[in-house]
């Protein structure tokens, strides 16, 4: 353990030195053709990103809290919303302490493609004026805002996962889960898919691409987190559902949602907030944010309708829970594609997601008999996989997609790189394979990592509540409160 820490420490130091050298064009490998533009921020971009951060916070609290809460039984409502709110707070603190550094700094040594370092632990080095680069050369976003925005993603992913084992996990286990899972599973995946040297970094030194995350450097496209958030949370919840086991009375006793009214309120807040999630992932307020917004409208609506009509056809009645679930499935599927696909392309993606997720949440779940209580697997894992692979298709410029930017081919004006860069060559089969590989990597990392987390928690405090607690309800036993005193 000590040797590893020493290695990591030395590695981090080396990494810092290397970065300092790389940052100075004169020392880069092969002198670049031009200089990087100065980073300039725009008040509109800062404003948009601040709003987006608040929107994603709202997705978690109260959006997800009510969406999940309405679906559990009355006796567990308070525990559900408390767990979500607590996770939001815990992950927020953890993020500011070490999460941001682990996700969005350069790693060192052999671990570097998989996780960042500790150079920005406790936000060390982050000043009030610090900026990060967006996806356009020379366009800056104040780093503190970026930190907030990314934090909300870490928090909601962790909160999403707990839906798989709702109504039976100890609160103390949830608290540990928030700390351990975000650290061991989320931060590395976020690093792997989203950490890269930035447009100027690539333009001035194409070799710096090697410092990027594993998923990013293989060319995986994930605009707002189809893999990082949804497949990740979906698998974690699924593994948790299997590890904790079925609820008492599952399949025999009535466990109907206690308030679909609140579930609808939650789903609606999720939809509204998701514009921050997807369009905010553009990091600036421009046409691509607009594209993401348009996609987040149309794919979502299409998925809600395709689920609803499929259910109407196969089960006889269109349900509110079905419509709301379809909407969420569509939001999940469009997440990785939101800044890449065309509205028509993601509309089809939404239609597919609604239908496929419907069958996973009904037929497949019944066939295998697992108690994935709030369908984290059926909606987030499956929807995320559909979206991740679908992104490889809808990004196709011939289909109206945004295409992929080649930052090694940016135009130079007066010795400075501009944001006018060529499109990369698009190979449909190749891109879909990359998407599938990244999705698979996420499944494996999340599956194995989550299992390790559950095992640690099991040893420390135990995972599942006692049978009496489960029968009486978590609200009274774990929290000493009732959700409703009517």
């Amino acid at each position, binding site marked *: 353990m000590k040797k590893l820490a020493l290695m990591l420490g030395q590695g981090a130091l080396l990494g810092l030195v290397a970065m300092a050298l790389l940052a100075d064009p004169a020392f880069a490998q092969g002198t670049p053709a031009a200089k990087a533009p100065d980073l300039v921020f725009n008040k509109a971009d800062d404003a948009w990103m601040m709003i987006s951060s608040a929107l994603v916070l709202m997705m978690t609290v109260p959006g997800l809290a009510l969406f999940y809460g309405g679906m559990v039984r009355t006796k567990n409502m308070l525990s559900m919303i408390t767990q979500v709110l607590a996770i939001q707070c815990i992950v927020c603190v953890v993020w500011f302490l070490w999460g941001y550094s682990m996700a969005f700094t350069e790693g060192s040594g052999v671990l570097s493609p998989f996780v960042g370092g500790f150079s920005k632990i406790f936000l060390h080095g982050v000043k009030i004026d610090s900026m990060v680069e967006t996806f356009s050369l020379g366009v800056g976003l104040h780093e503190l805002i970026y930190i907030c925005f990314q934090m909300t993603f870490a928090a909601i992913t962790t909160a999403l996962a707990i839906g798989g084992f709702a109504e039976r996990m100890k609160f103390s286990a949830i608290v540990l889960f928030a700390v351990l899972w975000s650290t061991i599973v989320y931060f590395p995946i976020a690093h792997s898919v989203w950490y890269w040297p930035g447009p100027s970094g690539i333009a001035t030194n194409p070799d710096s691409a090697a410092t990027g995350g594993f998923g990013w450097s293989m060319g995986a496209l994930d605009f707002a987190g189809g893999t990082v958030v949804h497949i990740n949370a979906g698998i974690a919840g699924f593994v948790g559902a299997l590890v904790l086991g079925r609820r008492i009375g599952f399949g025999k006793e009535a*466990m*109907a949602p206690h308030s679909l009214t609140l579930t609808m309120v939650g789903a609606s807040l999720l939809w509204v907030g998701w514009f921050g999630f997807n369009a905010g992932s553009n990091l600036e307020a421009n046409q691509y944010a607009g594209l993401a917004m348009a996609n987040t409208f149309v794919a979502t609506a299409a998925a809600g309708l395709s689920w609803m009509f499929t259910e109407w056809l196969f089960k006889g009645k269109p349900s509110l*829970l079905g419509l709301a679930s379809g909407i969420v499935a569509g939001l999940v599927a469009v997440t990785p594609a939101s800044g890449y696909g065309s509205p028509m392309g993601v509309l089809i993606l939404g239609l597919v997601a609604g239908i496929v997720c419907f069958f996973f*949440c*009904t*037929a497949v779940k*019944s066939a295998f008999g697992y108690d994935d209580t709030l*369908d984290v697997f059926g909606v987030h894992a499956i929807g995320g996989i559909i979206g991740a692979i679908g992104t490889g298709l809808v990004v196709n410029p011939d289909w109206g997609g945004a295409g992929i930017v080649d930052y090694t081919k940016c135009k130079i004006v007066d010795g400075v790189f501009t944001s006018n860069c060529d499109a990369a060559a698009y190979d449909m089969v190749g891109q879909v394979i990359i998407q599938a590989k990244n999705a698979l990597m996420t499944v494996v990392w999340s599956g194995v990592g989550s299992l390790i987390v559950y095992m640690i928690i099991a040893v420390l405090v135990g995972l599942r509540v006692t049978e009496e607690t489960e029968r009486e309800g978590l609200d009274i036993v774990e929290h000493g409160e009732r959700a409703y005193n009517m």
Partner: protein
Amino acid sequence: MKLVMAVIKPFKLDEVRQALTDVGIEGMTVTEVKGYGRQKGHTEIYRGAEYEVTFVPKLKIEVVVPTASVDKVVDAISTMAKTGQIGDGKIFVSSIEQSIRIRTGETDENAL
């Protein structure tokens, strides 16, 4: 004195209450209950999980009346609670040994 207990369809409450007032009954107790007889329940589906809901919501009206009034009370309830569809409910009559008005201490038929 007799206790008249009637289980009726919930939307019939107002009509039954009015009919009882018309025959001189000035108080009653109403409880929300669930039950089934020949009226079957229904199926609910939540994301593919099907629930057979056997119990149907009903209202139970309890009123204690002088023995002489039982027939007109039962009649009033029967007439107003009836729809002709399965699930209209039932009326039960049993004996009451004592009754006391708490405020004044009046007993038996003076307490009704």
